[in-house]
């Protein structure tokens, strides 16, 4: 530790700190623009000039390391003169358009100019004009004359997002922040640049000119999308969510959020919201009052139970529902005499059910990821499935010696400095982990009971095994694909064995905000008693309750799911949005509140319990899901449905004040069956595109205009294309089961051979079957 003095105040800071860090530790504010704690030091704004004893010139606090006994003066005459001088320079070419600037009221330049700027300008020349840039639907670069060249956005792209989409071109005062000619900003973390911009140069396109920052009330919330538990600040005006910003939490999302978290709020205000209950009358859905709709549901369910038995009812919930909703739904279903309840609609293999020692989770705390040295991610479209988790791995990979490997089904660049990137067809994933296991056993000399005699070890798998030999902290993460493929159980067991031998932690990244919470809520069928999310459609039921889910997009086999729903006598959908498909199969639509309009709890991948309150009142006649289920329980005369608040529901599941969930374990008692490749025909690889992953993003207007939301194509390896006698860019017919769709074929050599990559969760592919099932392709 070094002892230094800042403005006469004694401060102790660790060696290697900068003056800026020391000042922040001591509570002294030094004005700055380009400095950001999470970005590299640029020292280009020169606003943080301070006086240091014995230094003849003022020094930038952000870039000057402290030395023992250093005396720093942040408000001396020299320092103030330097800071005011820089402020004058920053303002001479900055437009005086604060009254119409979207940043007004939350602008660092505006704030600091109060303290360091002059009352009038000595600059009487013409001001610089910078032309606007068009960079996509999310970020507006309309007023680039406001840019003060701090390069935070540039450094964010290079360092955090992993892709340099913005750069500073040109030189002198005419240097400009821009993308490479004609390109758009497509990073899934791009919105953070808006937060980082200290002035009004980069602004949020969806939010522009809709509110002033001081009109907005800031309310805490948690992201309902991925499993990260991202903390949000939701800003509300007149009971309407105007925008979403990150809420800093160093243990989770640091100060970032993904574009999905940031811009999905548009869906909350979309015209597609379901605002009134609807019941099918004479073949068409009609708006009715709540009591009518609920009575209809209660009677319908009662009749079906009476006529066909409790087992004829099934309920499927979205893993993005709150803990309370999931719990009440299973209570309702079980109270009606059924055990057909699930919240894992994109799962195909349930062989681990009943063999788990606890609730599957990430296997470690998110904050501990930074301590890892070797990581293997299995089966994941990292960036698109888990933007912020990938960001953590990206930073981890920058530490020399750390080795991050990806074993997956696609060659998509995760923008991480990977040690190894192996991509194989989905059916070969177990063999590939087995290969890593075999190589590890061979090199380490340890023994395993798994029969690996037929497994061939590839170069890549051997290199992955080598990276797991060290004694440092290691982890294996199973991604969404690993849970969706038909060999999920085997992957789980193999990962467990590899983790056991290599002394690594292992776990599931988890698809959605309550992928862990659903198990706690018992929203899964008891082994051998009920039907899981796949079986309930494979063996059609008479009545279905759908909660927050659109089976045509959210199920592993939409063809089968929609088929079963259409045949059912009663389909009740608790939904936030209207949908054309629901018109075809739903008999009752109950408008339930999205995450901003209900209280509820999310349990993230690391087992963190986060409860949120609604940030505004439910729109229209929307009601929180837990209230709807509670009343339904009353109408069905089920015992134990007397909750007054969502806290009461939660308290039934969790001890009060729980921060982390108890009973988490990834141990599975599953035998590894002999490994072999048995494949016929082509295998489908289905990614869930980032902006189609749930109903909220599917209804977010601006996100739907991004490149990531472009319509799916059929990606095939050029060799596969040749084998099939097809040419790139040909329209091809993709057939699965009874459904077929016509897509354009695209040659993509990152797709493993004998596979076809066709995205799921999109209207144009909803007619297809299983996400990782067999598929055939023919000329259209």
């Amino acid at each position: 530790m070094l002892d230094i003095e800042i403005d006469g105040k004694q401060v102790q800071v660790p060696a290697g700190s900068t003056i800026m860090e020391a000042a922040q530790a001591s509570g002294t504010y030094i004005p700055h623009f380009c400095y950001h704690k999470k970005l590299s030091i640029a020292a280009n704004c020169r606003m943080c000039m301070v006086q240091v004893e014995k230094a003849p010139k003022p020094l930038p606090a952000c870039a000057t390391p402290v030395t023992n006994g250093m005396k720093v003066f942040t408000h001396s005459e020299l320092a103030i003169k330097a800071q005011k001088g820089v402020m004058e320079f920053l303002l001479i070419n900055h437009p005086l358009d604060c009254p119409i600037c979207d940043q007004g009221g939350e602008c660092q330049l505006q704030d600091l100019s109060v303290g360091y700027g002059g009352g009038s300008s000595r600059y009487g020349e013409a001001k610089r004009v910078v032309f606007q840039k068009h960079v996509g639907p999310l970020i507006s670069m309309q007023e680039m004359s406001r840019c003060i060249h701090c390069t935070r956005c540039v450094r964010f792209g290079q360092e955090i997002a992993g892709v340099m989409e913005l750069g500073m071109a040109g030189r002198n005062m005419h240097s400009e922040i821009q993308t490479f000619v004609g390109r758009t900003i497509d990073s899934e973390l791009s919105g953070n640049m808006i937060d980082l911009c200290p002035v009004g140069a980069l602004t949020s396109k969806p939010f522009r000119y809709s509110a002033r920052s001081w009109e907005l009330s800031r309310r805490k919330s948690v992201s309902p999308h991925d499993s990260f538990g991202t903390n949000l600040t939701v800003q509300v005006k007149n009971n309407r969510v105007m925008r979403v910003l990150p809420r800093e939490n160093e243990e989770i999302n640091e100060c970032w959020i993904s574009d999905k978290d940031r811009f999905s709020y548009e869906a909350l205000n979309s015209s597609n919201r379901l605002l009134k209950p609807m019941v099918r009358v004479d073949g068409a859905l009609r708006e009715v009052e709540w009591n009518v709709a609920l009575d209809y549901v209660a009677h319908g369910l009662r009749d079906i139970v009476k006529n066909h038995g409790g087992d004829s009812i099934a309920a499927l919930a979205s893993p993005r529902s709150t803990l309370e909703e999931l719990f009440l739904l299973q209570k309702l279903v079980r109270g009606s005499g059924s055990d057909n309840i699930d919240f894992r609609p994109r799962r195909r293999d349930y062989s681990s059910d009943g063999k788990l020692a606890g609730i599957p989770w990430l296997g470690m705390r998110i904050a501990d990821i930074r301590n890892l040295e070797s990581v293997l991610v299995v089966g994941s479209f990292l960036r698109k499935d888990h933007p912020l988790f990938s960001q953590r791995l990206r930073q981890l990979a920058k530490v020399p010696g750390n080795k991050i490997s990806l074993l997956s089904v696609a060659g998509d660049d995760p923008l991480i400095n990977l040690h190894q990137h192996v991509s194989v067809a989905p059916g070969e994933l177990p063999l590939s982990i087995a290969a890593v296991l075999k190589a590890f056993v061979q090199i380490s000399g340890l023994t395993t009971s798994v029969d690996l005699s037929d497994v061939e070890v590839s170069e890549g798998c051997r290199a992955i095994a080598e990276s797991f030999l060290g004694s440092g902290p290691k982890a294996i993460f199973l991604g969404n694909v690993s849970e969706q493929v038909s060999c999920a159980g085997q992957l789980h067991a193999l990962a467990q064995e590899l983790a056991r031998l290599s002394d690594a932690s292992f776990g599931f990244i988890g698809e959605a905000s309550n992928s862990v919470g659903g198990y706690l809520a018992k929203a899964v069928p008891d082994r051998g008693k009920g039907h899981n999310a796949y079986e309930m459609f494979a063996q059609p039921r008479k009545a279905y309750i759908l909660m927050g889910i659109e089976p045509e997009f959210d199920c592993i086999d939409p063809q089968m799911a929609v088929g079963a729903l259409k045949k059912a006598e009663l389909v009740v959908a608790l939904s936030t949005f209207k949908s054309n498909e629901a018109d075809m199969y739903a008999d009752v639509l109950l408008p339930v509140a999205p995450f901003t309009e209900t209280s509820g709890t999310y349990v993230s991948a690391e087992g963190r319990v986060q409860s949120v309150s609604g940030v505004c009142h439910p729109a229209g006649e929307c009601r929180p899901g837990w209230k709807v289920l509670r009343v339904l329980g009353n109408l069905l005369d089920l015992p134990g449905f007397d909750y007054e608040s969502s806290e009461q529901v939660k308290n039934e599941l969790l001890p009060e004040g729980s921060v982390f969930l108890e009973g988490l374990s990834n141990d599975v008692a599953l035998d590894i069956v002999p490994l072999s490749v048995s494949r016929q025909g082509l295998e489908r690889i289905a990614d869930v595109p980032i902006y189609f992953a749930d109903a909220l993003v599917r209804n977010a207007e601006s996100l739907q205009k991004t490149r990531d939301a472009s319509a799916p194509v059929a990606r095939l390896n050029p060799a596969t294309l040749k084998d099939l006698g097809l040419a790139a860019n040909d329209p091809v017919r993709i057939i699965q089961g009874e459904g077929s769709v016509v897509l354009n074929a695209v040659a993509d050599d990152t797709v493993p051979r004998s596979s076809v990559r066709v995205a799921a969760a999109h209207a144009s592919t909803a007619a297809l079957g299983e996400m990782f099932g067999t598929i055939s392709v023919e000329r259209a």
Partner: protein
Amino acid sequence: MAILGSINPLLTVGLDGDNAWRLADYVKRGGYTALRGILAEKVPPGVVVDKVKKSVLRGRGGAGFPTGLKWSFMPNYLPVEKYVVCNSDEGEPGTFKDRDILRFNPHAVIEGMVIAGYAVGASRGYNYIHGEIWEVYKRFEEALDEARAAGLIGKDIQGSGFDFELFAHHGYGAYICGEESALLNSIEGKKGQPRFKPPFPASFGLYGKPTTINNTETFASVPFVLNIGPEAYLEAGKPNNGGTKLFSVSGHVNRPGNYEVPLGTPFSTLLEMAGGVRGGRQLKACIPGGSSAPVLPAQVVMDCTMDYDSISKAGSMLGSGAVIVMDETTCMVKALERLSYFYYEESCGQCTPCREGTNWLYQIIHRIEHGLGRPDDLDLLRSVTTNIMGRTICALGDAASMPVQSFIKHFQDEFAYHIEHKKCLVPPEIQRAGSGFFKATF
């Protein structure tokens, strides 16, 4: 011709003739004896550094930092790749010496760089040549081929076990790439923008590895330092200012060109060698060290000797040795306007004071020159320059400010006259008479 005049020259001896730049000619002049001697006798690197230190060879690029001292900063003990980089990005207005060294004596630079590589423990070198002198770059490449073929660079040089590979790299003409850390960024393929220092290149240089950067003339002088011995080299100049130096004399003289003279030679002698002021006119002012050095009025500069200490005492800098001579026909406002335009145009745009300040300075001076000056403009200029100086990442901010400050200081009456009367103190016909350009069109 390589050189128009010299006094006791070292670097430019025997450079007449078309093949003077070739290896054979260089060897005939005694070239590569210093390198061969070091390698044959296995002189410890520390001894080489000490010799260079003793010679007080000071950096010829502008700052005048002692070369031997700079070399001694290199962490010789670290078993990592180290680099030697030659800065031939000669962009300072008025300077044209490195171009001629590379054109007429490239092997001296190569030998100097290999010796430097040996002394600091580097095995790779780059010569960054600015893009406007393409033929020179090509010739340097040819010289490199010759040296490589003769086993003077490459693997196991002269059987000594010492490896040193040398590459030429050409820039694209940004002045800022002459700043050493911007130059390193440029070699790395990044945008030529200076890095914040510390860390200095000796600890974090090219590709993050320890790097020594010297000017072309500095490297070219190294073989001569070792050939004649550090003591003799120091004596060739004056105390604390070892050796001879090339001066690029330009402006209103009869014979503009490069002159090699011992440091400490009186300015008047240099001016005389350059044929005196053109047309026998009166000397008005002189910028003694390239456009970023403060201007000196005639009476001051005539008393100076051409060395680091004397010029610095007079309030300017020897800089790169670009002597810009201005006679009585010069309008100092116009001259400053042109200089300020240069710095405005060449500011890299990275840090605020320079990016915004150089533009502001130029705009004010441009306004004064065009009869739109305001009474408080001179105070404003002084204030803006003090706000730039010492506040920037690299020295370009200072370089842009010093001419402004010195022009206003020494020629305040001309600026005041311009502002008050909206025209030049020097009548236009006299300006025209002094201008070669206007004469041609008369």
